[in-house]
């Protein structure tokens, strides 16, 4: 498997009246060809900002990429000239955005909105574009694709609109699809359909997906690898099995403890993570999770732990994984196993 996308030490800040918000503070991850990577974390942890920086979609006036690199197909794409970036966006990297209700132009036929991408990036003859769009609409499971072509967004339901956005994202056979919370705005039955669709398309098109979500259920459903993000950094990353079976970071433990499990009795309450994420105007010097962490030690507030690898694919940034730290991991796993 070859590397498709590699993000190294990405740092993104926003200028606001209150000062500089350090939204992304040194994010590293990679994505291999044909792989599905899930980036998980709670609201405001920098997931979407990371995705938008990769695609160069952040508003130029208020945001600044302060450092790092994004390599796509072996080429640095961070800070690429506008024209060259436009050639990549929509053709090699497709975006499925968060809110299907507002992500389509309300005054343009949905078919035309897809046709636009194909027209921009391919040499398909004009009279063939419509045929291709209808084919795409059928691929994403919209009934009566010929009629859908000339409908407007307000005539479609949320799930249908998300399918249209997916059709748009895959219209030029991209190597990478970035799906930014693709199911958040949809109700549960539609969520499952959309996830199935994404999985099917990933296989049939042999593409890679970076899926951003705060829903660990989604992760388990579609991803092969997971990156857990907290306060602008990746705190743990590994395969789905490693993260679900053998998590190394207290934040990941907290996330796993807060999902309901089928068959659990009434007495097994969900355990929420206490507190709220740190203020990113002045991020803590130590581990950002220390303030909420039940196992925080003195060192945790003083210094940010390095990445600690436990396997080729699995690493976490937590002082508990230091050989000098007391062994708490087994305790937690045991407590969780009930």
């Amino acid at each position, binding site marked *: 498997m070859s590397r498709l996308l590699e993000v190294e030490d990405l740092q993104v800040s926003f200028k606001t009246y209150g000062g500089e918000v350090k939204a992304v503070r040194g994010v590293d991850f990679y994505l291999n060809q044909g792989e599905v990577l899930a980036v998980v974390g709670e609201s405001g942890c920098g997931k979407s900002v990371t995705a938008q920086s990769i*695609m160069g*979609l952040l508003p130029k*006036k208020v945001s600044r990429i302060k450092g790092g690199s994004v390599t796509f197909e072996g080429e640095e794409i961070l800070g690429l000239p*506008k024209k060259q*970036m*436009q*050639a*990549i*966006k*929509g*053709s090699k990297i*497709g*975006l499925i*955005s*968060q*809110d299907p209700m*507002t*992500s*389509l*132009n*309300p*005054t*343009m036929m949905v078919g035309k909105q897809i046709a*636009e*991408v194909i027209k*921009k*990036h391919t040499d398909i003859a004009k009279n063939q574009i419509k045929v291709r769009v209808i084919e795409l609409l059928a691929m994403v499971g919209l009934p009566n694709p010929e009629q859908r072509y000339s409908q*407007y967004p*307000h005539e479609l339901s949320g799930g249908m609109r998300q399918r249209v*956005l997916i059709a*748009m994202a895959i219209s030029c056979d991209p190597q990478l699809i970035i799906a930014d919370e693709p199911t958040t705005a949809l109700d549960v039955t539609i969520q499952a359909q959309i996830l199935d669709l994404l999985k099917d398309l990933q296989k049939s098109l042999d593409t890679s997906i970076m899926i951003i979500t705060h829903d660990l259920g989604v992760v388990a459903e579609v991803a092969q690898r997971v990156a857990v993000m907290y306060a602008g950094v990746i705190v743990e990353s590994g395969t789905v099995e490693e993260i679900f079976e053998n998590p190394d970071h207290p934040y990941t433990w907290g996330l796993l403890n807060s999902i309901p499990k089928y068959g659990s009795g009434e007495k097994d309450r969900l355990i929420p993570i206490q507190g709220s994420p740190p203020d990113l105007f002045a991020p803590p010097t130590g581990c950002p999770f220390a303030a909420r962490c039940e196992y925080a030690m003195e060192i945790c507030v003083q210094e940010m732990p390095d990445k600690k690898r436990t396997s080729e694919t699995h690493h976490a940034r937590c002082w508990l994984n230091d050989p000098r730290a007391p062994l708490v991991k087994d305790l937690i796993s045991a407590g969780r196993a009930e």
Partner: protein
Amino acid sequence: MYIIKRFFTMLVTIWVITTLTFIIMHSIPGDPFASDADVLPEEVLENMRAKYNLDEPLPVQYLLYLKNLVMLDLGPSIQSETRDVNTLIADGFPASALLGIQSLVIALIFGLILGIVAALNHNGIIDYLSMAFAIIGISIPSFILAPLLIKYFAVDWGLFPVASWGTWLHTVLPSLALATAPLAIVARFMRSSMLEVMNQNYIKTADAKGLSTTGIVIKHGVRNALIPVISFIGPLAAFLLTGTFVIEKIFAIPGIGKYFVDSIFNRDFPVILGTTIFFSTILIITLFLVDISYRIVDPRIKLTSKGD
């Protein structure tokens, strides 16, 4: 179906306006001959009132007027012996309309461009300059702007005729003077509308498709930003088309603008009613056109009569 229903609504509106104007007009003191009352003998006045049916009771006058109105006859002008109101409007409207159309075109083209450019350079120098221009444009009254235009462009540099009506060159300065304020208003409207639209998610989607900036602005930005601006264009068009007293007066243009004002001073009842009805009709028609253009610009809007 919609259009038929709409047409009848328009007729009813005009009838209501006529009635209200009639009532208000007759509740101001004085009549067309009040100023002549001292010099003319009572019998003459009596005769003149009789000639224009002013001796009849008001309800009769009202019905007589409506009867003529149905036959599209706006009646005689009391002030002008030789021309009736229909002729007054027919003579004056072409000049006013030409002026109005030119101003409207100038105001729309440059106002929209200015607004779009300002929005795209939000908080940049171009934005500040164009909004400064817009505020000046709104603030300077046309009766100050017009003499200034005349002084520089006509008197000092001799590029255009000073006043009066004739060739196309005569229309340039008054059109500019008339267009400035609406242009500034359109620019401000368009700027704020455009700023809002460019922050929408679908603009981000368009960006993620790899479209060029110009493509995004034109295809996805402007069309959506136009929707709120259109509602402002209807009344603006009616106002510009029916002439303005000030500009027509300054440039000595034989339009209909002056009748709106003069007729009230003269208590020239048929002209007051006629010009009001004419203005209302133009306004109602432009509002109708605005509704139709809404439908074209925004597919979410359906033109149906209630209950359809």
